[in-house]
């Protein structure tokens, strides 16, 4: 076995490095460019500003005291989770629609779903951290929490489905249909606190007469901007990684065929080559 290709590994052989090296389009980063750099810097800057405002400028809450500072993390993370799943479903619809069918929509769907699942897990974790000192429990089976857990589970199932292999086009169509079905849970989850009795609070912002004072509101909105920029940055990198994987797959097949031919020719009339030693000529 070639030491450069351990069993199950994806280490790139020296002669294949050209495939990946040619993808290093910008300062050695195969998935980055000026847009992602700008997005990343802006995301970090707004996150830093949110942290400063959230921790040092905004006041404690009358009921929750210092615990209120989690409002600058949890709602924004949950919104990015929804954004990921909705974006996945929209891209899936575009893939299913014959006129717009393109591999790029399928790539966008998987990128958005993966980032959405990351934010969904973060939503459950930050919610649990907030819930323990405020409610008194880490977890309870109330409608909002249950539906969020279900949302996370079904999109993990969607990602597992994408890994099942088979005909790529059939798999992409199957996955797109599943994504469109799964996304129905998003509005149900969002409205769970108004439709059913729930321990989770109702929406602070999206209601008739919201009661939240100025600095808290602005800092909360800034947190949406910070996490939104981070979300976009992650989706763009993940999308480009999918492009690279496609490219690596296509060019890898070409190389594999070429190498098989080379092996065949070598068996006919060439001397054996030691991979690490010397050859006397």
């Amino acid at each position: 076995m070639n030491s450069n290709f351990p069993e199950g590994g994806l280490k790139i052989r020296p002669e294949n490095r050209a495939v990946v090296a040619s993808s290093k389009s910008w300062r050695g980063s195969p998935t980055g460019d000026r847009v992602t750099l700008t997005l990343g810097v802006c995301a970090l800057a707004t996150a830093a500003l949110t942290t400063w405002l959230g921790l040092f400028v905004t006041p404690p809450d009358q009921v929750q005291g210092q615990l209120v500072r989690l409002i600058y993390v949890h709602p924004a993370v949950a919104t990015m989770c929804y954004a990921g799943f909705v974006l996945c479903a929209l891209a899936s619809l575009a893939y299913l629609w014959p006129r717009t069918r393109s591999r790029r929509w399928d790539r966008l769907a998987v990128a958005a779903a993966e980032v959405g699942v990351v934010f969904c897990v973060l939503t459950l974790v930050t919610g649990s951290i907030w819930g323990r000192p405020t409610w008194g429990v880490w977890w309870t089976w109330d409608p909002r929490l249950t539906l969020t857990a279900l949302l996370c589970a079904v999109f993990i199932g969607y990602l597992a489905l994408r890994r099942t292999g088979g005909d790529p086009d059939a798999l992409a169509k199957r996955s797109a249909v599943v994504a469109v079905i799964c996304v129905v849970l998003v509005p149900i989850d969002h409205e769970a606190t108004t439709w059913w009795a729930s321990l989770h609070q109702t929406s602070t912002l999206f209601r008739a007469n919201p009661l939240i004072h100025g600095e808290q509101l602005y800092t909360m909105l800034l947190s949406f901007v910070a996490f939104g920029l981070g979300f976009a940055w992650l989706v763009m990198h993940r999308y480009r990684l999918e492009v690279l994987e496609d490219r690596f797959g296509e060019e890898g097949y070409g190389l594999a065929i070429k190498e098989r031919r080379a092996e065949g020719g070598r068996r006919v009339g060439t001397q054996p080559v030691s991979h690490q030693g010397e050859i006397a000529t």
Partner: protein
Amino acid sequence: MAVTADSSASTVSGREAVGPAPRVRAGRSLLASRRRQIIAGLVIALAIGFVVFEGLGNALSYYQTVPQALAARQSLGVKSFRIMGTVGPSVKQVDNRTVFDISYQGQTVSVVDSADPPQLFKPGIPVVLEGHFAKGSDVFDSDLIMVKHSANYVPAKGEPASVTAQTGGS
């Protein structure tokens, strides 16, 4: 003359000497076999089934308000359920138990709680209690207190006036 052959990039007689073919998209092989797909599908289906059964089964009727619970007092018996109300002005500690009332829409239930209340627990705050009515009385025996805070965010008293203005959100 000796030529050093670097792992696989060497050339012999003008022909590329290469090793085994690359594993294309090796990372996608985790669920490649039918057996693994079935196992993964079963695990996910079980997880979703558990969440649906355990969660949605009682999540949609997560709690009953005080009037609803009192109206269903006979049918509830000593069955465990959740009740929601606002904590009354008097909270006492009696024999390591917390004794208080909860009320909602003018109706009140007396509560004896055997667990530690959460840190936000205080008179005037809405709570959801887990427990059951005591046998032969309308006293609620609680073994879990959960605080149900509102969606309003108001600065703590003593904060500067400039930050206490009510602001409409989006």
